[in-house]
């Protein structure tokens, strides 16, 4: 289909203008507002004890959720692709649930099971373990929302790969583990890497589910996104530098993640 120069330019213009107005302009305004009183003021807001502890909690939650979901994701993708049957189909449907269900509903669900009057919550409380309104519940919520990414990134790669190489390795006498480490894992590494980056971004940025199960106590159960929320709702409509600074910090972290995603996953465009 050959289109005229004018049509081409207007399509390009509409596309770029849409991106600029919807994504880039708002982001620019946040950066501008962060630094309107100078860099020092913004810096002092992200180095308060509450902000530093929020950053740490966010990192800790990501460090719990991402490795767990990576191991689970790789195993699960192998099962889904290599085994056919009803169980695999059911599993396939369940994996998508964290994408389909609202984060708030995820938070509610965890409260119903692990909360004070929850199914297992009473037992845990009797043994002195507090889950909801504490860090364990937030960890559960983070694991929940970031669960599907690795499975969904590794699955298509495995399917495209086929299993001839694995069978060849097996006929040459390789054990299951050897095949996995020397054949399967190296071929799916870009899928795994991309899944890990996506889960990390989600784990660091999650707010809906974590908001429900956090007690919102600064220094204890505030993650970086919750800190933005807290600061912004405190000052109300005239959200000040404090919340913009925290938002910029979070944005910079995620922009780095995005950069890593673009630079280190060259295989992506080809595969998709």
């Amino acid at each position, binding site marked *: *289909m050959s*289109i005229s120069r004018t*049509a*081409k330019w207007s*399509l390009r213009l*509409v*596309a770029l203008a*849409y*991106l600029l107005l919807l*994504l*880039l*302009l*708002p982001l620019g*305004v*946040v950066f*501008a*507002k962060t630094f309107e009183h100078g860099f020092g003021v913004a810096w002092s807001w992200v180095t308060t004890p509450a902000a530093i502890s929020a950053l740490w909690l966010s990192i800790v939650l990501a460090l719990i959720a991402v490795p767990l979901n990576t191991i*689970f994701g790789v195993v*699960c993708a192998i099962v889904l692709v290599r085994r056919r049957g009803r169980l695999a189909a059911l*599993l396939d449907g*369940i*994996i998508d*649930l*964290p*994408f*389909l*269900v*609202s*984060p*708030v*509903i*995820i938070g*509610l*669900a965890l*409260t119903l*099971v692990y909360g004070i009057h929850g*199914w297992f919550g009473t037992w845990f409380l009797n043994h002195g373990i507090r889950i909801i309104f504490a860090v364990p519940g937030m960890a*559960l919520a983070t694991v*929940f929302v970031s669960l*599907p990414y690795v499975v*969904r990134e590794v699955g298509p790669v495995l399917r495209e790969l086929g299993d001839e190489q694995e069978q060849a390795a097996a006929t040459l006498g390789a054990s299951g583990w050897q095949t996995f480490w020397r054949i399967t894992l190296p071929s799916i590494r870009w899928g795994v890497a991309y899944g890990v980056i*996506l889960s990390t971004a989600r784990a660091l*940025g999650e*707010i*809906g589910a974590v908001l429900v199960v956090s007690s919102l106590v600064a220094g204890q159960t505030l993650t970086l*996104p919750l800190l*933005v*929320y807290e600061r912004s*709702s405190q000052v109300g*409509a005239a*959200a000040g530098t404090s*919340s*913009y600074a925290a938002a910029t910090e979070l*944005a910079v972290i*995620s*922009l780095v*993640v*995005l950069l890593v995603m*673009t630079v280190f996953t060259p295989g992506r465009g080809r595969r*998709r």
Partner: protein
Amino acid sequence: MYLAVIVLIPLVAVVVNAVNQSPSDFWQSISNKVALDSLVVTLVASVLTAGIGAVMGTLLAWVLVRDEFPGKRIINAVIDLPFALPTIVVGMTLLALYGPSSPFGLHLAYTRVIVLIALLFVTLPFVVRAVQPVLMELDPEVEEAAASLGAGNATIFRRIILPALRPAILSGSALAFARSIGEIGSLVLIVGKVQIASLVIFTDIESSSSQAASSLSLVLIVLSLIVLVTMRRLGGRVVH
């Protein structure tokens, strides 16, 4: 087992909690004015998001695949921005641009329009990333053949390109719809008094009325399931 503990048992608890009340209580918690209003706003905004997203997403994918211009790789990376950016940051950016202290005098915060803008922002990549690979693999020879047989651009687009892209567009906008139905992070700071379903659920949880929250949750879950299943029927598998 892992899946059961993390995902299934909690979700079953929501359903059980919603069903485990008298039908009239259930009906009351989803048909009171606040809940009903929030459902309507959420549904309308989600349908609009899916629709506008389908058109603009296809257009963006077209420009990214068929057009060549300097800086295209950067634009391609920018598409992923909404996936990488934490939703609360999206909320802050919209508050900065459209809030009371807007530098351009755009006071859209706390209106229904801002809900739509936020949803378009967070769901932007879905359609683009679904359509892009299909468009890449589309054989231009078919289009050339059509052109040589005298078909105009509009005909080629309608008869050749659109049918090939339809499954991808549908599954992309179905995902966008499902995401919109449950979105909270980007909206929590900017909706003000506009009621959206996920925030009503949150308020219900905060006021310890977990049965009301569960009832509304069940409605949302069923809604997104219906849309996804229909889209799957219409357009093949949902790609992520």
